[in-house]
Structures are given as structure tokens and as C-alpha cells.
């Protein structure tokens, strides 16, 4: 146990769809204070893992947060136990303003009766989340007209105000430009100081810069696990996921550099 809230421990998680094993006995853990990465080829089962942890898909095995078993509970219950997540495609309440979005998210621990009162003023927690995600100026803007990246930040903000113990982010920087990625990565590192942060990403540069530990999934199983360098060096990971190019572009070379060796990588591109 590294932190106050206890760890997120996934043990022998299995998810099946009509006989197809999407996740077949995955175990890993994540602790407060680290930015934990879950990577792997398309279709490896990363999103399905998160779905199972958050109650969207039915899984067997065990998922605990601290001493609470999460598996088998309803989504809203799991959220109330302190698990927040974002989605591969940002989903915010498009008809509501940024502030209203955050306020709703912040309200989960409010009593039912207080729901019947109108909102007065802005919670300090919401105010600081607005700061954090850089949307202070946009508080009255309907979320529907935010840009893609801003929506993703808003989603993170909505999680933050819920004070969750664990945040699960599914491809949070997909489609973001380089400096937006940097901003997001730094935000995640700040958040991770007190919470469990689990990130699914395909952006390897992003992973290298911000990951503390990495778990690689392949065909529903854990293929490799460890520190960034360790995982990158794993030939099996290179073969199914990174391509051999990864070895040559280790370090902080921007991802754009990867393209220089595309032809080479292509030969190894195996798909799922």
C-alpha cells in the first residue's frame, strides 16, 4: 500500500462475449502517486478491462479498490466508491454549460433533498477544477460547442470534482496537438500525486514522458509489465505492438520521428 486510499488491484479478470474471450485472466495493480499505463495492440482488451472495472461489462475475477470489491456492483455504485473514468470519445452534457457539467459531477455526494434547491455560487472545488483544466474563461459556454480537446479536459475536470480515488482514462490525448498533450500529461502528473491514475494510450511518446509503470496487454492477457524502458525493450512487445522502430526512437524523440522508419515497421505490423 503506497497511499492513503489503498490500491486498485485487478486479479485474474476475465471478460467474455458470447464465447469470445476479450480479457482472459488479467492481473495488475495501480497505486496512488504513479501514472499507470495500460497499453497494447488494438483489440487487446484495454477498454474492456476498464469497462469491467467500471461495471459497464460483466467480468469475473476480482477488482478491489482499497478493501472494496468493485466487480458485480452497478456503475453508479462503483463511481460512488471513488472510481472515475473518461471515454475514448469525449462525452459531456452538450446542452449544459461547463459550470453545470462540473456542478452535476460534484453533486454526487449531495443529499437528495439538497438537489431540489437551486445552485447558488460556485463550489470552491469546482472553481479550482476550472483553474486546473484551464476552462475558467469558458464556464458559461455550452459544453457542446467546446473543441474536442476542451471537452476531454472538461471530462477530466468532471472527474476531479468528484474527488475520486482512482481515475481511469481511455486515450485521453487522442487527437490532441503536441502542446495540448504536454498540458494534459502535466495535469495527469499533478493529479496522480494523491490518486490512482490509470491511462490507456497509443501515443508512445506520451507514455514515455509520463508513465511510471506500464502493463502491456495482448489478446486479453498480460504480455509484459514493468517500467517504461523495461517494457520497451521487451522483444515480444516490440513484435506485437511497438514495432522494431521503437527501439531506435527510445528516449524523448518526438513521435513524428517514428515516421522515418515506417517502411521498416510496416513489415512487423501484425495487427491484432
Amino acid at each position: 500500500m503506497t497511499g492513503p486510499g489503498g490500491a486498485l488491484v485487478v486479479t485474474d479478470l476475465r471478460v467474455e462475449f458470447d464465447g469470445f474471450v476479450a480479457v482472459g485472466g488479467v492481473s495488475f495493480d495501480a497505486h496512488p502517486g504513479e501514472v499507470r499505463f495500460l497499453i497494447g495492440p488494438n483489440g487487446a482488451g484495454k477498454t474492456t478491462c476498464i469497462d469491467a472495472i467500471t461495471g459497464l461489462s460483466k467480468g469475473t475475477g476480482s477488482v478491489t479498490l482499497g478493501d472494496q470489491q468493485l466487480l458485480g456492483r452497478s456503475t453508479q455504485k462503483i463511481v460512488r466508491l471513488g472510481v472515475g473514468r473518461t471515454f475514448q470519445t469525449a462525452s459531456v452534457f452538450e446542452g449544459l454549460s461547463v459550470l453545470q457539467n462540473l456542478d452535476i459531477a460534484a453533486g454526487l455526494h449531495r443529499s437528495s433533498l439538497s438537489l431540489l434547491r437551486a445552485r447558488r455560487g460556485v463550489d470552491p472545488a469546482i472553481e479550482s477544477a476550472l483553474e486546473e483544466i484551464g476552462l475558467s474563461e469558458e464556464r458559461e459556454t455550452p459544453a457542446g460547442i467546446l473543441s474536442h480537446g476542451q471537452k476531454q479536459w472538461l471530462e477530466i475536470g468532471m472527474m476531479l470534482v468528484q474527488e475520486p480515488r482512482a481515475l481511469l482514462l481511455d486515450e485521453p490525448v487522442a487527437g490532441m496537438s503536441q502542446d495540448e498533450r504536454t498540458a494534459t500529461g502535466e495535469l495527469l502528473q499533478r493529479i496522480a500525486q494523491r490518486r490512482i491514475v490509470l491511462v490507456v494510450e497509443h501515443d508512445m511518446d506520451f507514455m514515455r514522458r509520463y508513465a511510471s509503470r506500464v502493463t502491456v496487454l495482448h489478446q486479453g492477457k498480460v504480455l509484459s509489465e514493468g517500467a517504461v524502458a523495461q517494457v520497451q525493450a521487451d522483444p515480444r512487445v516490440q513484435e506485437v505492438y511497438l514495432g522494431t522502430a521503437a527501439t531506435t526512437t527510445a528516449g524523448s524523440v518526438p513521435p513524428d520521428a517514428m515516421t522515418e522508419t515506417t517502411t521498416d515497421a510496416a513489415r512487423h505490423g501484425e495487427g491484432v
Partner: protein
Amino acid sequence: MLELNEIRAGYGPTLVLHGVTLPVARVVAVLGHNGAGKSTLLRVAIGLIKPRSGQVVFDGEDVTSLPPNKRVARGMAYVPQGQQSFPQLTTMENLQLVADGRKRGKSLIEQQLSRFPALEKFATRKAGLLSGGQRQQLAIARALITEPKMLILDEPTEGIQPTIVAEIEHTVMQLASEGLSVLLVEQHIGFALEAAEKYLVLASGFAASTGDGGASAAEGVREAMAI
């Protein structure tokens, strides 16, 4: 091949593009921050959005008022952002859908299946059940089956595993070298510039800078995007 002249377009009351002109070249990359209007520009190009003013010219023909399906029939193909598919159709049906009525339909499908083995593996699965990356591969395969003269790609590598990113990038380069025109939106500046003959940087719906592609352009682009 494709010209976008002085495009002004938007959604409802809001204007997103304020008179954008695309540089004319075979392979053009459009770069810019989130919300800059890149996807909007591509939607105008394929016809999903009617511009309030400005012109879309394809292959010398003014297609501004043509619906998307007619533009596709004239040789444009479009891969939208966000891994879109027909969720209730199987992977195979997704492909057959575009292959229908084409002479070499069967072999075109075969060709794409061998390019993306994951699709072959999940041929009978409903596309809605595929993983994000698998769906994106499907989307690109669908576009290629139409044997387009021009490919419009909106962040085609978003959410794709590195090996396949490489594969897609390779494919794009190769198609480009074979003479296909490409209009590309990408966050991977390096790749975009390598592929592109010309680039356009969009900032808040204005053309912030344009220039020739190639690795040397990267500095200029980063600067243009920083403002």
C-alpha cells in the same frame, strides 16, 4: 485535384471557417490545434457541410452543391475522425457495402483484408463490437475499396497501435507516390509534413500559414501553431 476557395462555413449560428483557401497540391496536410476547424474543412470538402460561401472544385469541376455520395462517385473518399463504422453490420458487410456494384469488388475486399489482418479475423463480428483501433482500420479499408482518386483523411492514426500507425502511414505514402491525391489532417506533424507537398496551418478558422511540405517545414509549422 481539389481546390477549396475562400471557404466560410460553420454550424447553426456559429461560423467556424472564416474564408479558408487550401493550397493546391497533390498531397496537402492540414494542421492546427483542437477546434481550429480542420475537421470542418474536410467536411466541407466531402460535402457534409455546405459552405456559406466559397467554392469546392474537384478535378476541374465545381462540386460545391453536390451531395457527398456524388463526390464519392467522382473519386473522392473520406475517412472521418472518430473511428466511425456501421455498428450493426458485420465487418464484412461494412466492406461489401462499398464494394457492391464495383467490378473488382471481391478482390478489392481481399486486398484490404490482407492489409489489415484484424479485419479478416473479425470478418463476421458486428463492427459496433470491434475495438476502437479495429474500427479505424475498417474505416480506412472502406475508403480504399472505392478506388478513389483522392483520399480525405481526418486523423487516420488516432487511437491506433504504433505498428499499424506505421502501416497506415506507409500505405498513405505509397498511395501518394502512386499518384493518389491526399488531403490529410494529422497531429503527427512529422509524418504529415513528410507526406505533404504543401501544408496549411489553421488557427481559429483562419489560414495561419501555408508552405511546402518536407521535414524542414516543421519549425515553421510549430511556430505558426504556437500563436
